[in-house]
């Protein structure tokens, strides 16, 4: 039995992305041999047939080729839940700033995001990954494997480039300029002293 065929069989049966090391452990052979087999399988499938091998969500998986999308969709009639604009905004912020707290997401959007966060948690596109060591210990959120799968990504490094640091600096400058432009009278600072904290 050829290794390439064995790998093909495992991928065909799997319902989630497979890691080469997991495949190697299952097939009791070195991981590099499985990776070679995966390369050959990918090439073979790309040359013909309705199925292709893709890298997605940190592993390898078989899927139908895009040119067959229409007939497959007509047959299986998938229920695709659309992500609303607010869900996409929150998801994008979590994706780029992760791990991130709800307050940080609110600051970027300028509106509250608790409802969207709950929806994304329910859809398992984000998850609670711990707590930030700051006062109140707010929950930190990050994207999941499900997110990578839904957006056709292998890893987070494939996200479209955004210089978030630069955006935040610009946002700070903008806010400072707004404050300067307001004609509000400024209060004299309180005399320094320990009394009353």
């Amino acid at each position, binding site marked *: 039995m050829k290794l390439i065929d064995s790998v093909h069989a495992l991928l065909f049966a*799997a319902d989630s992305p497979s890691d080469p090391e997991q495949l190697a452990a299952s097939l009791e052979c070195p991981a590099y041999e499985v990776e070679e087999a995966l390369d050959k399988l990918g090439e073979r499938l790309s040359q013909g047939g309705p199925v292709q091998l*893709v890298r997605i969500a940190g592993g390898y*998986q*078989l*899927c*139908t*080729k*895009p040119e*067959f*999308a229409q007939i*497959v969709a007509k047959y299986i009639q*998938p*229920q*695709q*839940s659309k*992500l609303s604009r607010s869900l*996409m*905004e929150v*998801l*994008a*912020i979590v*994706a*780029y700033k992760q791990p991130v707290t709800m*307050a*940080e997401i*609110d*600051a*970027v*959007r*300028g*509106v509250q995001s608790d*409802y969207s966060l*709950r*929806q994304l948690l*329910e859809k*398992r596109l984000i998850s609670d990954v711990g707590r*930030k060591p*700051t*006062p109140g210990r707010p929950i930190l959120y990050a994207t999941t494997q*499900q997110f990578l*799968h*839904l*957006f*056709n*990504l292998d890893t987070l490094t494939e*996200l*479209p480039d*955004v210089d978030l640091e630069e*955006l*935040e600096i*610009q*946002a*700070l400058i*903008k*806010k*400072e300029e*707004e404050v300067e432009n307001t004609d509000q009278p400024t209060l004299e600072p309180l005399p320094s002293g*320990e*009394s009353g*904290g």
Partner: protein
Amino acid sequence: MSKQSHTAKDDQAGGLLGFVAPPDIHIECEAFTGSLAMLFHCVKERKIDLLGVPLAPICKAYFEHVLQESGDQDLEAAATAMTALAYLLERKAWQLIPKVDEEPDDDDLLEQIEPYIQELRPAIEHLRDLRDERSLRFFRQTEETGAEYELPFDMGEVGASDLALVLEKLLERAKPDTVEPPTTPRRSLSEQMIIVMNALSDEPKPIEEVVTEEFTRSEVVWWFLAMLELIRLGQARVRFAKGSILFSRGEVS
């Protein structure tokens, strides 16, 4: 510490502080030597570091003084001096608290940021494109339900977070709870379910039209629990329609 005679300088120090001069307690330590009145003055003028002055013996000496001379002491003067002593203690306490990092905390920083979601718009569009590309590929069991559990009843497209949102809306309208005597018996869930059933009709309605009367926060939670129980039993139905969540009576089993 020792008691000494009251001096004109002490009176001046007390007068400068705006209170009756404290009792004649002499303080002698590495950081300061002088009367209690002078200590108050020096602390006020920031001429000495209070951290070097042990305050516990001073307090003890002061209380001994008050107890010994309680018979012929001016109560107002003693009280004023006590306030001054408390002032010293507070000043020192604040000094003893570790200084926090001067960096503003996260919340302060967040307030300083102007929302910049618009700048993220191209990235969001790109993500949408990726999603569209992905929708052309079909994997084995591609669409996950997103729920690790199966509800034993049908709620259509309505999810737990949608119901939570409805509850939040009701809570926004709720009045604060009134304090009731602890003996007041709470309405049972069955009784509450009858009330909710009477409020529901066969025609699906948004929650605002179902709950029209005024209610408190605990009443609304009780109301909602009864509604959830009715949904679970199939005696109430919840559906998405026309962009809102509608409630109605279910089929009577």
